[in-house]
């Protein structure tokens, strides 16, 4: 219990008869990065809003650092922070003015020094006197991250922090987050639609769909839920022999040219297929194997194929 930053028990949100979040439970440990994934309408944002206290749950309990959030709101919010691509700071005010106001809201000691340190770390010193609404998307993201660190939080809730950024800036932002995590042992609850980001940054992934958790595991273990892989072979020899072999084995395949075939199969059967084709006196020139990734898992759950509840 002591090393849990966030513990969610049976959290539920109903809008009239519609159940947006259906009694979900999960936790975030100290130093852990947990990804909250799901298609649009899965309940991610509603969950985050309840965790931040800007939406009241219908039922359920949220504990931060072992204390009930509804009873210890101020104490909990003092130790966490929030960053989102969808919430911006006060556009009319400069970056410094925004950070100053937020620093006071968190009662930060030596605030000016803190703002200088963070702005140097995130390389936004030159932006301090610019109005927030004049910044580019990448600059705004960095300023939002500074805001989210102003109170030295132990847990940050990040709602798609890299949405609307180009790949280069998104990569730099992610690198900064990784660095911060390593240096400060930060815990993160991270939502994103970018599966590469999630694979890169998250220790654990929670898939939400229609308000329920449909899968929860490490990114690697989740990809193992999808047993299908794609094998692409380029060969020399009679393609009819290849076709006959694959038909005999009841495999799904498609010729991509006279001497190239793509086979959809279980990952564990790939060596057997290559060996079997070789035994047919076919000379295999090139082998490409496409293993399932987190995106395949996401699409599988989102499209409700092969749904496996592993929670």
């Amino acid at each position, binding site marked *: 219990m002591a090393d849990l930053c966030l513990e969610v028990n049976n959290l539920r949100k109903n809008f009239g008869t519609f159940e947006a979040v259906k009694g979900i439970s999960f936790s975030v440990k100290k130093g852990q990065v947990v990804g909250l994934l799901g298609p649009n309408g899965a309940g991610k944002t509603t969950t985050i809003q309840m965790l931040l206290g800007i939406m009241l749950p219908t039922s359920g309990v949220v504990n931060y650092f072992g204390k009930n959030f509804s009873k210890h709101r101020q104490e909990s*919010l003092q130790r966490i922070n929030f960053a989102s691509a969808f*919430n911006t700071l006060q556009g009319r005010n400069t970056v410094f003015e925004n950070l100053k106001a937020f620093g006071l809201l968190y009662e930060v000691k030596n605030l000016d020094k803190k703002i200088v340190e963070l702005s140097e770390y995130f390389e936004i010193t030159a932006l301090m006197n610019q109005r927030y609404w004049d910044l580019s998307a990448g600059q705004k993201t960095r300023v939002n991250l500074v805001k989210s660190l102003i109170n030295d939080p132990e847990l940050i809730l990040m709602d798609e922090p890299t949405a609307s950024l180009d790949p280069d800036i998104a990569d730099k932002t992610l690198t900064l987050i990784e660095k911060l995590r390593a240096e400060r042992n930060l815990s993160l609850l991270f939502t994103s639609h970018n599966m590469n980001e999630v694979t890169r940054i998250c220790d654990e992934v929670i898939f939400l769909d229609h308000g329920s958790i449909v899968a929860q595991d490490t990114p690697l273990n989740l990809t193992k839920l999808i047993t299908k892989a794609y094998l692409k072979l380029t060969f020399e020899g009679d393609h009819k022999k290849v076709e006959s072999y694959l038909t005999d084995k009841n495999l799904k395949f498609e010729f991509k040219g006279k001497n190239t075939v793509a086979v959809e199969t279980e990952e564990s059967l790939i060596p057997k297929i290559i060996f079997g084709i070789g035994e047919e006196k076919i000379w295999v020139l090139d082998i490409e194997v496409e293993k399932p990734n987190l995106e395949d898992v996401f699409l599988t759950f989102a499209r409700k194929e092969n749904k496996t509840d592993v929670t």
Partner: protein
Amino acid sequence: MSLSRIKGLLLQEFYITYQSLEVIMDLLFFSIITTVTFGFFYSYTSSTDKTLASYLYMGLLMMEIIRITQYTTSLNALWNIWSRNLSNLFVTPLSITEYLAAQMISGAVKAGVIFVLISFFANWLFQFNIFSVGILNLFLFYINLVIFSWSFGIAVLGIIFKFGSRFSAFAWSLVFLLQPIMATFYPVSVLPKAIQYISYSLPPTYVFESARAALVNPSVNWYHLSISFSLNIFYFVLSLWFFNQMFKASKETGQFARNEG
């Protein structure tokens, strides 16, 4: 209650105010233009009926206290909704009491500064000395009008939180709905009997009645002002209760989070 958090909000409000042409126009420009325009009207009519001219001009100047306090109390939320920053504020340890306290202080200070400024303009340009009603009287009028405007502003804020920024126009217009019935420019006795009952249920009515009387005799009408103050306490408590209901409902329905679009 944290003074640091109240200071943080006041600082944000201060930055928005001095950098926003809209706020400067809504507050300072509008007040000065009203003062000047009706100052000329006062000069013109005072030669024929000085009492009537004074009633009108004093009512206008004192109405600015209500307008500015109520506008400021309600409007900070809208600046933050339009900047998609309101949620950011409320995911900090900021309490709703601290938030309202900051808006109330901001409203009272802005109204006080602008009222003193336009009063000096009125005296300097048109020789209308509102201070002739007595400093204590003026202070008590200001206190009562400010508390009433806080109550009204807090209620409007609750409506905006609950129903969204489509009700944003209430922040700068709804209070004028009461202007005809709170005897701003004329005695309550002018109003139809049924409307008089409503008028006497509003705290500013007693302030405006006292102010008109004070132009002739500047002694404090403690009876009227204590009724005004008592009604103010009642409406203030009512507005806090109403706001809490609206705020809770907006968090239950999800409207609070949706306000930012």
